[in-house]
């Protein structure tokens, strides 16, 4: 039934992106905690990062030419998909320890799945990215699997 997924496209499964390294700051934690509506003082004061803070920490900071007309960037390590419009997908995260200001975290991302489903308004392409977030010394902080949907 698959019509959009060529063997060439599927051969990208297993590809990894160059690791990203970012410094966690109190200011960035505070901005994130306020914008999301957190109530706990340790988050609002930037003393500890909320569980979803890594989404903000590792969101792609790309140059404007790399954004599509709807303001979205495609990860440069991802293949070109035959569908373009991004819908939000799902997340699964396993936590090992909290994140604190001063942490330097490394995110290692791998494209772990590509599959197609029939949506009510046409085909949908799903792809899954697995991200390992580690400390500089290699301690696992969290593992995240993100599924993105294109229509």
């Amino acid at each position: 039934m698959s019509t959009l997924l060529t063997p060439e496209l599927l051969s990208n499964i297993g590809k990894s992106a160059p690791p990203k390294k970012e410094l966690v700051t109190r200011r960035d934690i505070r901005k994130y905690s306020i914008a999301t509506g957190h109530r706990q003082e340790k988050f609002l004061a930037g003393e500890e990062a909320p569980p979803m803070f890594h989404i903000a920490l590792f969101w792609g900071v790309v140059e404007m030419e790399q954004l599509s007309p709807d303001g979205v960037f495609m990860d440069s390590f991802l293949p070109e998909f035959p569908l373009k419009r991004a819908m939000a997908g799902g997340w699964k995260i396993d936590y090992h320890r909290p994140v604190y200001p001063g942490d330097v975290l490394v995110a290692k991302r791998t494209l772990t799945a590509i599959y197609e489903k029939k949506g009510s308004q046409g085909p949908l392409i799903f792809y899954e990215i697995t991200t390992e977030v580690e400390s500089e010394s290699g301690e696992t902080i969290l593992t995240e699997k993100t599924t993105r949907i294109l229509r």
Partner: protein
Amino acid sequence: MVNIRPGDPLPERQYVCDSIQLFLYNAALWNAHRIHFDYPYTTEIEGYPGLVVAGPLMGDWLTQCVLDWLDEEGQLVSFEYSNRKAAFTGDELRSGGKVISSDPETGEVKLDLHIKNEADEVITPGKATVRFPAA
């Protein structure tokens, strides 16, 4: 921990995301997706009824539901959610959930989580596992 039973509800919280919160959230990410800030584009080109509340923002609200219920007594071990249906600025949304199982041996408690819209539809379902210190 000893008092936690399957079926126990988690406290509900109402969220009404306005364009200021949506802007601040996407600014904190560096997310330029136009459906979150460009009203004419979002309604006329994409055909949505209003600015779209960011999916991972609603995911964060589910973690708040867990953390506010835990009140520092246990820790979040794993969390998952998916965005099933869009929500828009001004929508009255509610987070909540309930206990699915509780294992006193391991201290692990499994939770079902949701964001519901005004029509009482679950638009963002989720699950979490939390761990309480061993007794």
